[in-house]
Structures are given as C-alpha cells and as structure tokens.
C-alpha cells in the first residue's frame, strides 16, 4: 500500500479537518505535525541505526494514530523494531502494534516471538509489558499462546506481573469465550492472591468473565474485606460493587426484623413457641423471620471495612460505599453516607449530575437521611439547567410538613428565574408538593393561579397543566379557578395548556354550566387552526356537553364533529366517528349508547404526581443501568435477600494465616524488604496508608483482655477519704500510669459470689441521690487544687510528640502509626483518679474498699437492658445495666454489669465473650469465663467497654459450650460519663470556656410531677451519670461529669423560670454528646 491512497482516504474520512487548519489547532504542537509526504522519511528513520531517529519517527507515528490518521502502511517498517533494545522505542512500537495488529495479522505474528522472549525477561516491567501487548493484539491465532502466557504470569513472583495477568484475562475472554473454563481456573488462583496490587484487577476479571460464580468468592471474602482499604482506588470500586452483590446472596436482610418488631413486637418475640401447636399455617419463611435477627459477623465486617472509604477523594469510591450501605446496612446506619454524598456535590458538574440522580432515588426511600442537608440542594442561578432540575427533584422528595414552608419560599425565588425550563420544572415541583402535603395544597394552588397572569407563556402553560392535576383532587371547591382558566383560552397559545383547560371544563362542566358552552362555541370557531391535541380535547368537550347539556350544545357538537370528520389527521377523524356513534343515538348504535354518560363522565381517579425516580432502586445504585433506568449490557442484577442465610461456614478458611497474622508481624516483614525498591525490588508489598484496622484493634483488645469484673463496692465511707488524698498526685503520674497499665497484673477473678454482691450493691445505691449532694459539697475544698491543675490548658503536646518521634525514626511502617491512639493522656480524667492511684500504689483489685464510693451513689434508678432474650438464647437470658462504677482495670472503660440466668433444664458451661467486632478505637475488657451455670441459677459479671465517647454499639459474641450468640451493647449517652466534682466557681469558669458551639440550650416545660428539687435531681442523675454541683441560686441546678474515654467536661445547667418553664443547658466540647444529652435529659424531665 502506498502512502498517498492512505492519505486521501484519511482526508475523506474527516473532511472537516483540513490540513491547513493544523497551524491554528492549539493541540498541534511539534509532535503532532506529521505529513504523508514524510512517510518515506519515517521509514528511513526507522531503518536507521540511531535510536534517537527511531524514537523521533515513532513519536510522529504514534501522534498520527492519536489524530486518527491511518499509519497502517508503516506496519512492516515498525514491526521490525519490536526487538529494539531502546526501551522508549520499544514502548512506542508496542503502542503501534496494539493498534494495527488486528488489521495485519500475518505481519503481526512476526513479533510474537519477541514477546515470548519478553515474558521470560528478568525485569518485571518488561515481562508485564510483553504480556500486556500480547494480550492486547487481537489475533485469534495466538489464543493458545496467550493462555499459556497468562497461566505462567499468574504464578509470577512479581505481583505487578500477576496484576497484568489479571488484566489480560478479560481481553482473552473477549477474543475467545471458549477459554472460559481455563480462565476461571486462573481467576480462582489469582483470587487467592494476598497482595493488594492484584485484588482489584482479579475481581475485575471475575466480574467480566464469571460474575455468576459467587462460590469462588467465599474463601476470599474476608481477605478482600480486610485488604480493601489498601487496594488502589479503582480496584476498590470494583471490589465494593461485587461484594454488594455477594452480600445480597449470603446474608439476611438487616431490616426485615426491625420492621416486623416495630409493627408487632409482642408477636415477634413470643409468637413461635406458643402458636406453633395451634397455628399450622405458619410457613417456613415467616418462622425464619420471627427469629430475632442477628447480623452475620461477615456482614458486619464488610460494613465496617468499607466505611472509612467514604472519606476517599475518589467520587467513584464514595459512591460505591454509599450504594453498599444503601443496599446492605441496617436502616439506622445508612445515614452516614449522606454527608459524603453531599460532599460530592461540590465536585465537577458531571459528578454532581450522577450523584444527584442517586440521591434522588435514595431520598424517596430514606428521606430523613438527607433532610439535614436540605440547604445543600438549594439552587444557584449559575447551576447548569440539568443540575437545577435534579436538585429540584431532590428538594421535592425531601419536602414534608415541617420544611415545606421553607422549600416553598425557595421555590418562589426559582419561579422568577430567567431559565424558563427550570421555571417549568419548579411549577411541576410545586404541584408535587401540593399533592403530597395536604396542608399546603390551597397555598400552592393559589400561588399557581397567580402565575396564570405571568407574562411568560411557558410559565402560564405549565401552571395550567399542574393546576389541572390539582383540581382533579377536589374540583367542587374550585369552580372560580376553573372559570378563571376558561377565560385564558383567549390568550394562551401553548397547545398542552389549551388542551388541559378544555379537558378541565369538559370534566367539570357541571360546575361551570354557563361558561362551558360558550367556550365550546369559541373553540368551534377556531377548530381548524388548532393543534391536534387541542382538537381532540375540543371533541371531548363537545361530547361531554352534549351528554349533560344537549339543549345548548347539540348543534355546536354536530358542527365540531363534522369539522373533525374531514380533518387531515386520521386520529381526529377516527375519534370524531367513534364519538358520534357513542353519543348520538341511532338505530345502529345499540347498547353502548345507554352507557355513554357513564363512559364519559365516570369519576376519574386523581393523578398521582410522583417522582420519576420512584422504585429505581431495584437497580444497583451507582450503576449505569440505574442512571439510564434501563438494563445496560452486562448488568448484573442485584439479588433479593435470601429468606434463609446460606451456610456461613463456607467463608471459613482452613489455614487462617491471613486473619490470624497480626499486623505487627506483617509490618516487620515489610520493613525487612528493601525500601527503595525500584524495578528489581519485585515482591515488595505495597505500602499502605492504612492497614487493617480491625486486626489491630482486635489484638489490642485481646492483649488487655481477660480481667473480669471490677472489685465490688462495699465500704463506701472509707473510700471517700481515700479519694480525697488520692487525687492530687494523679495528674502528675497519669502518664506513667498509662504505660504501666499494660504490664499491670491482671486482676483476680472474684468468682460468682463476689459479683453477686456487686449486683446487690448496685440496687442498694438506688435511693441515695440526696446523699450525693451533700457529699459533693463537702468535697469541694479538697477538689480545688486538683481541678486547677486539670484546667490548665493541655500544654503537654510536645511531650507525646517527642516520644512518638522516637518510634517513628525506627521505621515509617511502625505499627504505632496504625494502632488507634490510646485515649488522650493529656486531659486527665479526674473521675477515675481513685482507681488509678490505688493501682499505682499496688493495691490489688480484690480489695473491696477500692471503689470510690462517693462517685457512685448519684444515680437513682437502674435501668436494665436486655442483651439476650430467653427465647433467642434458648433458655439463657442475659441482661445488663450500667452500674456506674469506675472500671478499675481500665479507667477509660465504662463498666457494664451483666446478669446471666439459666432457664434451661441443663447446665450452661463456658460462658464467655468472643470475637468482639468493634468500631475502631473501641475496646472491650472481657469478663472472665463462667465455667458453669446450674439450671435456674443466675450469675453476675462486669465487663469494661471503652465506647470512645460515642453511642455506637459494641458488638461481640456470647459463647457457651454449645452455642454462640451475637449480641451488642449500646450505651445511652448519659452512661458515657462519670461524675466529677467541682465548686461553683470552677463550674462557672469551665462553663465560660465552653460557650459558642459547645453550648446547647433547650427550653422546656417541667410537668407537675417534676417540680420538686428532689425529683429534678433524681431524674437528671437517672438520665446521666453526673454529680450535682453546689449552686448559690435557688432556681438553678448544676451537674458535672467527664466523658469516660477522653475526659471532656460535660456541664449541665437547669434554670427554672417563672411558671413551669425551664432552660436546660449543656456545655461540652463533645458537641454530639452535648446534643444527645440535652435530648435525653429533657426527655427524662418531661416524663
């Protein structure tokens, strides 16, 4: 093939690209300007011995390809250079080959041996690129060679080459789908790969080749979850989407029981065992549903490990996690995705466009989730129209009785926009709000009627259409509006609007008996000039009037029908004929005629104005198919949850080295590897910004575990003194204490008897709230110096910094980077001081006197919570309550007293905690195993949980010798703190520091029952573990506490105003806690 035909063909192909233009084309820099005349030069250059010339030639050729010019005639000249030593030249030759090999298969075969050699090269980069090119040249003849190469590369030492092998799999599959079985074998092998580099690519191959083989995932499921955070961004997207589908096939819906419980809690709990005998109708499925739902820990693992990725900078990753949560998470947890999705709205407009469509779908199902972000969907005049319309959709979905007035006010500004398409959409949105929220229907209707006098015809037309729909809901009250609209027929020209008006008048002609015939008269006059849809409605109106008011309209109707009979449009001719037969009685028309009135004037259901995004969530969110609302090629359906969970043991891995290997071991391994690995440092694992969070936290919690209940609390009085003495040195020795804690001997298990005492103790202290007040006052002077020290700003920053530096310099991969930080030592929690000090003094925990009694008597009623119901636990029932005692083994933990009762016939053995699944940073101190529990017996133990000052639940398993139960403990916010004493002055001082956003105030009215000092104090202290602070004013109550984990102050002030009104103020650095506490306390007071 000569050069010139190629050129002219090219010219014909894109005539708009005239050659001379290139000079002006900003993209045509030096390398882009090539010319057919130089093809000979190029060949010469390629044949030369100088690499620089070859490189220059190849650059120009590749530039030609990029511009869409034909360079196929150069194939022989280029392919010769495939064996060129210069790697730069080689790369470009590869680019050329990938483009043209398909067209020149015979010639391409010449190059294959070079690639085969490349596959054996010691340099992993060369091996990988040889495989990449080999798999990219679409020449069917080499399929066996490709297959072989892929298999070999899948066992390559270098993860990079293995990754390339994974990439090659879909390419080979698209070339020859008969290779599927062999490719699945390779996929299976690569799925077992433990490096992050391979994970994303092999899952991609899995998705393209064998997405139906969900069984291949089982054994790799946990590994994929754990690797996820370290996989590169694009791989994360693919894995998360695949795991979403996987989870839908393997786990139970986390929401089915919840909804069942809400509806009928009684039944759900007690239904099965009593009804079983009489009620045979219960089918298997419903029985399953009645079992209390317990989330599979693997399900939880997925949710937990994907959550941090909501913070990714990559919109696709955030969306992937969001859809995973939407499809898989319990209702209560889905909310976290809203903030991240709203963040994406600040990205490029294409991203906004996609995200808004997904938000629109989600907001129909889970409106509450986005309500706090309502204002983020407000529309700016600079938004592109397509974004405006989507935002409008979301705003409409979010509208409810409480926010509708705000939204309508906002809509009012939109109506005056210059963007008329947007205005039209706004009017429709108003219509939807009006139908959905009865309260504002009249307001909306009035607003729309006002728009009828707008100057813009489009606005008027859209309003007419919407008003028509609204009127259909309650026409009788609105004959005025119908009359008004009838007058508009003189002015409005938009066909749809005219048609709507005519329909309205016809439908409600009885409400406007005088006007209707007149409108028909006018329309008859202009009939021939109308648009088709208007003509159809004129006929319609005529027919209806004929039936209701034939005296006035008989002639007019006949006139209109005659006109229609000869219309150009056959629809209109047909309609006219049809209607004439129907309404005008003749001999032939027969029976139907009698029913004409029923046919035409039947009560019509009001239209439901609903979102076009309704029910779109049957498509996996974030998918192309969801966006198009149609199945795209290759879309994998999102399966429904199974009724019964498949066997979870399929995910167990026999040699669980992956899950067991602690990250410290892994880290060490990495450190040993050469750090500055270049192309030769092949098997070096990838550094990760985050390593598996949970294995770290798990190992940590295990190491600190196994101590059991805290010492019980007798001898409060002595302890009170101890406390006073103990405090002063505390803040000095605090840090040392932190270090010692780990080494400290674990406290002895006290045995059953001991724990039972503490249980009783707890109940005794119920009534002693008043005592606490006096106690705290007495304590005031003593606490002064201590609290002063505490309040000095935590200037200890350099100290921890320095120590961290020490560890840092050893290796940047040191584990310390990744473990959740120990709870801040800087802000010393005075609340736990006694136990700390006593610990330092070497007192063993068996000392019953240890517990600082003065801190405990504050609370009045103990609320017990159910951990495991008798039915669910098969006779074992477990309850827990927060005993509000410090937890001596770890002052940052909240003590939880747990009571087991054995209601079975047999002994329950080996009661213990296992496999805590905790949010990062959260820790559990397990109670010591209860060896056996006789039938009818109860036992009490105490365990410590560090909730990290959050109300997130701690999930763990409760194991017996035969069974395990998934349970979770969720603390009320009031239990996350421990009382602290301070003087009035100090309280005021601290409060002064915690103003602004740290202060949350609510107005409330105290009910009659809750007027006395005693009740108020009792209720507040019941709601939260706080102590009363003395107060010089009569009408004010003050309470103080510190959060258990971080020791942040929480100050509560209740100020009584005249009447029963009161102001409740909470000051706390922890705003979330503050907000929740205000709610809880005001609720407690309002009861």
């Amino acid at each position: 093939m000569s050069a010139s035909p190629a050129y002219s063909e090219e010219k014909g192909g894109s005539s708009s690209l005239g050659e001379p233009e290139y000079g002006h084309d900003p993209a045509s820099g030096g390398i882009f300007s090539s010319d057919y005349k130089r093809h000979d030069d190029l060949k010469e250059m390629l044949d030369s011995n100088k690499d620089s010339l070859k490189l220059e030639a190849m650059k120009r050729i590749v530039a030609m390809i990029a511009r869409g010019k034909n360079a196929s005639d150069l194939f022989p000249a280029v392919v010769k250079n495939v064996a060129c030593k210069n790697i730069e030249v080689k790369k470009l030759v590869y680019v050329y080959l990938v483009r043209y090999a398909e067209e020149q298969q015979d010639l391409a075969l010449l190059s294959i041996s070079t690639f085969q050699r490349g596959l054996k090269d010691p340099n992993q980069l060369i091996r990988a690129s040889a495989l990449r090119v080999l798999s990219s040249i679409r020449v069917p003849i080499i399929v066996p060679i490709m297959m072989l190469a892929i298999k070999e590369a899948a066992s390559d030492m270098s993860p990079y080459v293995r990754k390339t092998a994974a990439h090659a799999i879909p390419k080979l599959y698209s070339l020859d789908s008969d290779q599927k079985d062999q490719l699945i074998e390779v996929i299976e092998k690569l799925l077992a790969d433990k490096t992050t580099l391979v994970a994303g690519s092999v899952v991609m191959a899995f998705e393209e080749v064998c997405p139906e083989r969900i069984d291949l995932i089982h054994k790799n499921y946990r590994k994929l979850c754990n690797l996820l955070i370290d996989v590169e961004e694009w791989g994360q997207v693919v894995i998360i989407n695949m795991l979403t589908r996987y989870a839908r096939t393997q786990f139970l819906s986390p929401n089915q029981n919840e909804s069942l419980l809400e509806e009928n809690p009684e039944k759900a709990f007690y239904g099965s065992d009593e009804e079983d005998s009489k009620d045979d109708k219960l089918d298997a499925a419903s029985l399953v549903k009645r079992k209390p739902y317990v989330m599979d820990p693997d399900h939880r693992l997925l949710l937990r490990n994907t959550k941090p990725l909501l913070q990714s900078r990559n919109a696709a990753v955030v969306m992937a996690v969001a859809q995973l949560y939407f499809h898989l998470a319990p209702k209560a947890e889905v909310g976290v995705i809203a903030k991240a999705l709203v963040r994406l709205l600040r990205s490029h407009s294409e991203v906004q466009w996609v995200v808004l469509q997904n938000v629109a779908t989600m907001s129909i199902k889970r409106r509450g989730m986005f309500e706090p972000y309502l204002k983020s969907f407000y529309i700016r005049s600079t938004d592109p129209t397509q974004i405006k319309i989507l935002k409008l959709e979301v705003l409409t979905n979010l509208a409810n009785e409480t926010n509708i007035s705000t939204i309508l006010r906002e809509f009012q500004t939109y109506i005056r926009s210059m963007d008329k398409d947007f205005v039209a959409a706004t009017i429709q949105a108003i219509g939807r709000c009006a139908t959905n929220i009865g309260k504002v229907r009249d307001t909306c209707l009035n607003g729309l009627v006002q728009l009828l006098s707008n100057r813009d015809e489009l606005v008027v037309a859209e309003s007419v259409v919407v008003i028509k729909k609204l009127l259909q809901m309650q026409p009788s009250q609105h004959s005025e509006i119908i009359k008004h609209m009838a007058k508009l027929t003189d002015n409005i020209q938009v066909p749809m609007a005219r048609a709507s008006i005519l329909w309205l008048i016809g439908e409600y002609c009885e409400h406007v008996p005088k006007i209707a015939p007149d409108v028909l008269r006018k329309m008859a006059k202009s009939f021939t000039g109308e648009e088709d849809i208007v003509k159809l409605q004129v006929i319609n109106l005529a027919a209806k009037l004929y039936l209701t008011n034939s005296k006035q309209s008989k002639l007019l109707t006949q006139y209109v029908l005659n006109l229609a009979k000869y219309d150009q449009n056959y629809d209109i001719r047909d309609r006219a004929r049809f209607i004439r037969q129907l309404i005008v009685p003749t001999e032939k028309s027969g029976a139907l005629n009698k029913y004409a009135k029923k046919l035409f004037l039947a009560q019509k259901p009001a239209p439901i104005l609903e979102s076009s995004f309704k029910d779109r969530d049957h498509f996996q969110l974030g998918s192309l198919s969801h966006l198009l609302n149609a199945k795209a090629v290759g879309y994998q359906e999102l399966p429904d949850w199974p009724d019964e969970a498949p066997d979870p043991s399929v995910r167990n891995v026999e040699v669980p080295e992956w899950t067991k290997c602690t990250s410290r071991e892994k880290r060490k391994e990495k450190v040993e590897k050469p750090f500055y690995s270049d192309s030769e440092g092949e098997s070096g694992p990838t550094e990760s910004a985050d390593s598996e969070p949970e294995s770290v936290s798990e190992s940590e919690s295990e190491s600190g575990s196994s101590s059991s209940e805290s010492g019980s609390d007798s001898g409060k009085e002595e302890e009170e003194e101890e406390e006073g003495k103990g405090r002063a040195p505390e803040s000095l020795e605090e840090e040392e204490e932190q270090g010692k804690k780990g080494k400290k001997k674990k406290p002895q298990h006290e045995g059953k008897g001991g724990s039972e005492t503490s249980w009783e103790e707890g109940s005794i202290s119920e009534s002693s709230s008043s005592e606490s007040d006096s106690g705290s006052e007495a304590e005031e002077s003593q606490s002064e110096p201590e609290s002063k020290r505490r309040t000095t700003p935590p200037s200890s920053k350099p100290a921890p910094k320095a120590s961290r530096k020490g560890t840092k310099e050893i290796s940047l991969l040191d584990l310390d980077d990744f473990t959740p930080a120990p709870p801040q030592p800087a802000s010393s929690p005075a609340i736990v001081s006694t136990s700390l000090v006593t610990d330092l003094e070497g007192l063993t925990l068996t000392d019953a006197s240890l517990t600082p009694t003065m801190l405990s008597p504050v609370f009045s009623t103990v609320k017990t919570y159910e951990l495991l119901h008798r039915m669910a636990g098969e006779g074992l029932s477990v309850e827990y309550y927060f005993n509000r005692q410090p937890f001596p083994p770890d002052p940052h933990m909240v003590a939880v007293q747990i009571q087991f009762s054995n209601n079975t016939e047999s002994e329950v053995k080996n009661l213990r905690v296992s496999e805590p699944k905790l949010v990062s940073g959260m820790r559990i101190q397990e109670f010591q195993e209860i060896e056996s529990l006789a039938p009818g017996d109860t036992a009490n133990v105490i365990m410590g949980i560090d909730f990290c000052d959050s109300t997130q639940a701690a999930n763990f398993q409760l194991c017996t010798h035969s069974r395990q139960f998934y349970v979770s403990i969720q603390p009320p916010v009031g239990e996350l703190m421990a009382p602290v004493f301070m003087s009035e002055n100090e309280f005021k001082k601290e409060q002064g520091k915690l103003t602004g956003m740290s202060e949350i105030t609510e107005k409330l009215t105290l009910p009659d029952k809750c007027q006395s000092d005693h009740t108020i104090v009792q209720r507040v202290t019941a709601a939260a573990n706080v102590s009363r602070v003395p107060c010089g004013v009569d009408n004010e109550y003050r309470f103080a506490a510190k959060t258990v984990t971080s020791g942040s102050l929480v100050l509560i002030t209740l100020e009584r105003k005249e009447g029963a009104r009161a102001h409740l103020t909470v000051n706390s650095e922890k705003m979330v806690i503050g907000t929740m506490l205000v709610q809880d306390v005001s609720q407690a007071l309002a009861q």
Partner: protein
Amino acid sequence: MIHSLFLINSSGDIFLEKHWKSVVSRSVCDYFFEAQERATEAENVPPVIPTPHHYLLNVYRHKIFFVAVIQTEVPPLFVIEFLHRVVDTFQDYFGSTNVGDQLPTGQLSVVPWRRTGVKYTNNEAYFDVIEEIDAIIDKSGSTITAEIQGVIDACVKLTGMPDLTLSFMNPRLLDDVSFHPCVRFKRWESERILSFIPPDGNFRLLSYHVSAQNLVAIPVYVKHNISFRDSSSLGRFEITVGPKQTMGKTVEGVMVTSQMPKGVLNMSLTPSQGMHTFDPVTKLLSWDVGKINPQKLPSLKGTMSLQAGTSKPDENPTINLQFKIQQLAISGLKVNRLDMYGEKYKPFKGIKYMTKAGKFQVRT
C-alpha cells in the same frame, strides 16, 4: 471498561482518539454532536448519552469534551472520575515539562503514589490552606445558606521517603474530610493528625467542610438597588460593595458579575473604581472592582435602557461575587505544626492561608 476515548474541541473537531480495544469508528461521536445540539449549552450536555450500541460518557473541561465510549455496564462515576483524572494529568504534564522530552515511566514503588529515588538540593514543603465560602444571600441581605469548603494543597519537594505529620490547633472545625490516599486514616480517626508519606510535587492533601454548626462569617456585603419601571424604558441600577466580617484583612480581587434580563438593551454605568463591561448580546455585566477600601466603598451606578414597548422584566438578576482575602482562613482553622520523620535533613516549611469566594450569590 473504557473502550475508546475521543477528544473534541469547541468547534466540534475530533482532534485526538485512543482505542483500548478494537477501533470504534469516529462516527459514534455523531450521537454526541446531536446531544450537544439539543443541549444548546456545553454545560447541559448530559454526561451519559446512550446510543444503540454504545454509551458515551463525557466530561467537559478547558473547552474540550472528553468522550469515553463504553459498551457494558460500568459505574458511571468510575469513568467520569477517571476522565477528570486524565485531564488533571494532562494539565500537569503539558503545563510543567517540555512535551515529549520524557515519556512517562512505569512506577513500581512500594508507595504507589510516590516515585522512588527522589532527590532535591533544596528540600521544601509548602502547604496552602484555601477556603471558599459558598453562600446564597437573599434580597434583604440575610444569609440563606453559607458554608465553608476548604482544601489543603501541597507542594512537597523532599528527598527520599519523608514521613510527615501535620496537626491542627483546632481540628474539631473539620466536619467532613476527604483525603489523598497517602493519608493514614486510622491516625486521623484517633488523633486528628494528618500522617502521610507525601507524593512528589503538587497534590491535594485534604479537602474539608467546616461543620455546619459554625456560623459562617460573611466578609462582604452588597447593597443593591435595581429597579425597572413599568411604562418607562429606563431602569435604575446601583450597587455598592463593602467589607463586613473581614477580621481586619483587606478584601481584594473583587469581581462582580451579573446576568441581566433579556429586556435590558444596554447599560450606562459609572464605577467609582475599577473597570466594568456590559455585553449587549449575552447580557452579562461584569465589574472588576479590585480592592475594597473601607473608607471609600466601591459603587457602580447608572441606568439601564430597556426594550421600548415591552413591560418590565419580572425577574431580577442575581449578583455573583468573587473576592479573596490573603492570610486568612475564614473558618479559623490553623495548622499547629508540621514534622518530618524518616529523613535526616531539615526541610524548609511554609504555610499560607487564603479565603476566596466560592459560589457566592446575592439574590436581588
């Protein structure tokens, strides 16, 4: 995933193409051109266009459409995000180095985002804390919505494998954050410290949103009086810009733009400072104000001539505002310190603060 990519410039020429699988004919772009025509404006071209055999996913940046051809189901954001990254890379690549001198090399580093063997004679790390205020101000001057978006952009030129930590005086301000993949998430979760091995060169370390509970200080106000009178072909136009909560800093780079209603034929205005233009075709008014001097507030006054015979436009223009304030992060965010581990040398460290208007609109 992506089958082919076409780059189309503003005059509709396909000037670059790339195929990863078999070649897809350029004619597939005709569907795109159709959609473009329907949309009338570039920004309204739907990012996803279905065609009988393909799906066209496109992004529009720098007046160029990047059109990706897709054949099977793929998360659309995956492609869109990827295309934007491609554009970022182009921008970076064509912007800084001499095109074509050096072909990109494959990276096989243990730290995927950082190349190995980095060497500098001057080791330096600069961080820019840039905050943008998005706000909608209503007619009466009260704030309908206002929020602060911030980013920390870094330019790090450090030898070897430095490990940096950056801490804030008041990390509580950060409500919602998203990180460059180099940031260790756990460390942030537990200590609110940014710990990372930085990529080499320019990168965005962090984007954040300041918690909504904080009241946003609005640094400028606009006084406006725009009135159309019925039965008159003249309208009055007057705006004044003044500083509000600026924390004692100067507001500069002030630029006012406003899209006037179609009925406005021309405007005759006098600014007290700066330059202004009105384009009678697009009806876009822009006024480059410059610095605000609190003693002498900049104003723009004059008349608008309206189309004779037509009634007054019923919409009022919105005023878009741009400005910047140096050495101020309006949220009050402050970097506490930056430390480097893992390398022995002493780097030069710098931090800069700036506040800008984001999408700042005043409704009139």
